[in-house]
């Protein structure tokens, strides 16, 4: 049976879809069978970041409404044959998602895959709630700033009271923090919250710290999940996070200010 992982945050623009794409790709690189599902009905983005936007025929809502089979809607990743994408519908709105419909699709996915990664929309409304409702594990994406931390806190509170696990009184969703857009320099200058601050306020262990980098945007635009760039710090940081998700111990990297080399100092960086 697959584990359902929701990637969520409350706040928009913090890197949920980038994270979903990289975590799903990373798990697939490690040989797992992975399905990644876009819950952002009406604002579909995951297909762009996964680079399969021109191959979307059927979507999540089509499956829920019985207009096609799940198999027809799943798009096989062009780089990993054990990774599949279920795109959101761009033309419907979030009311097209129902608890029963989502449960049916997730149950079917659980039989075929090791991991189902749910990319949540921003906010705490229907789409976000349904994305987290059936989760076994949650990756809460947070930027080092106060509004993002507060929204994540709110989302964690909702997960603790309104998920299926909470309603059934079983063991809660296992929660992880993933800090994105982290800049050690700006933390040192006092412009950003430090890792210690975030950990203390949210009271959760950190799964990974993704350094701020222009490469993330570039690879998103190119439709290549940044984890595939194994030379980029952000890609390496995502690979570390995936390893930790699988239970390996890895030291945190990219949390110190990079020391500038002599040449960089002489000629400016």
């Amino acid at each position: 049976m697959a584990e359902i992982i929701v990637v969520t945050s409350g706040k928009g623009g913090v890197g949920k879809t980038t994270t979903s794409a990289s975590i799903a790709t990373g798990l697939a690189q490690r040989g797992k069978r992975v399905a990644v599902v876009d819950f952002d009905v009406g604002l579909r983005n995951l297909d762009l970041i996964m680079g399969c936007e021109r191959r979307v025929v059927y979507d999540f809502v089509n499956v829920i409404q019985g207009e096609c089979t799940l198999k027809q809607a799943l798009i096989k990743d062009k780089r990993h044959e054990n990774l599949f994408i279920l795109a959101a519908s761009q033309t419907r709105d979030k009311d097209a998602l129902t608890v029963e419909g989502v449960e049916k699709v997730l149950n079917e996915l659980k039989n075929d895959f090791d991991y189902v990664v749910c990319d949540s929309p921003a906010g705490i409304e229907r789409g976000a709630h349904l994305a987290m409702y059936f989760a076994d594990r949650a990756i809460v994406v947070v930027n080092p700033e106060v509004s993002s931390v507060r929204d994540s806190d709110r989302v964690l509170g909702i997960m603790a009271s309104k998920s299926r696990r909470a309603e059934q009184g079983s063991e809660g969703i296992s929660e992880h923090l993933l800090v994105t857009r982290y800049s050690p320099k700006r933390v040192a200058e006092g412009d950003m919250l430090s890792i210690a601050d975030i950990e203390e306020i949210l009271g959760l262990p950190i799964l990974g710290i993704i350094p701020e980098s222009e490469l993330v945007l570039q690879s998103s635009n190119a439709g290549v999940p940044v984890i595939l760039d194994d030379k980029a710090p952000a890609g390496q940081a995502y690979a570390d996070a995936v390893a930790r998700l699988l239970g390996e111990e890895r030291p945190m990297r990219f949390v110190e200010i990079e020391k500038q080399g002599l040449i960089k100092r002489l000629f400016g960086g």
Partner: protein
Amino acid sequence: MQFGALALRVHAPDPEEVIAVLKQRQRQAPALLEQAPLALDLSPLEAEEIDLDAIRRLLSALQDENIAVLGLIDGSEQKTVAKQLDLPLLGSASERRSALRSPEKRSASDWAPTRLVDGQVRSGQQIYARQADLVIYGSISAGAEVIADGSIHIYGALRGRALAGASGLGEARIFIQEFHAELISVAGHYKVLEELPENLRGQAIQARLENDQLSMVTLR
């Protein structure tokens, strides 16, 4: 005499107005009226203001809102009213208020066991310990709210709000291991902490009423 119910003091006998006020309260604190029995207190009204028909309409409106009315709090004018409305009388309002304010008169039967909460209270969550003390073993995030009719003990950081003595118990206190609160209140005397006093930030604090003033001092 003492009982575990909320008193609804009726200042105007207009049912619509009373329901509107109750609904506003309910929005502010949804936990407050959950299955709470109410006692009507008509003592703010003059005898000639008491309109039996209006009160009957109020009772049926409350019933529509799923709020149970236990009875009428006894006042000078209300024996006949209670009889006409077929409601039990529940002891005098002044006696009730004095009982609330002095813990030694509080009987054990109506005071619930201490409410214990393990883990973090997160932004947007609200916890209310009705007729009880509240112990939080964990931190309270900014934007979260903990409320108790008794005292509140927080073994963690308070970044949100804590309101003790919510139904008027002036002896209630708040103990906080790590103080970063947005707001604290004891028996309705509250303080909004737009700027945290430097000497209290992050300290272990006790908050209590002293001569009707909210005082916050560090624990030694």
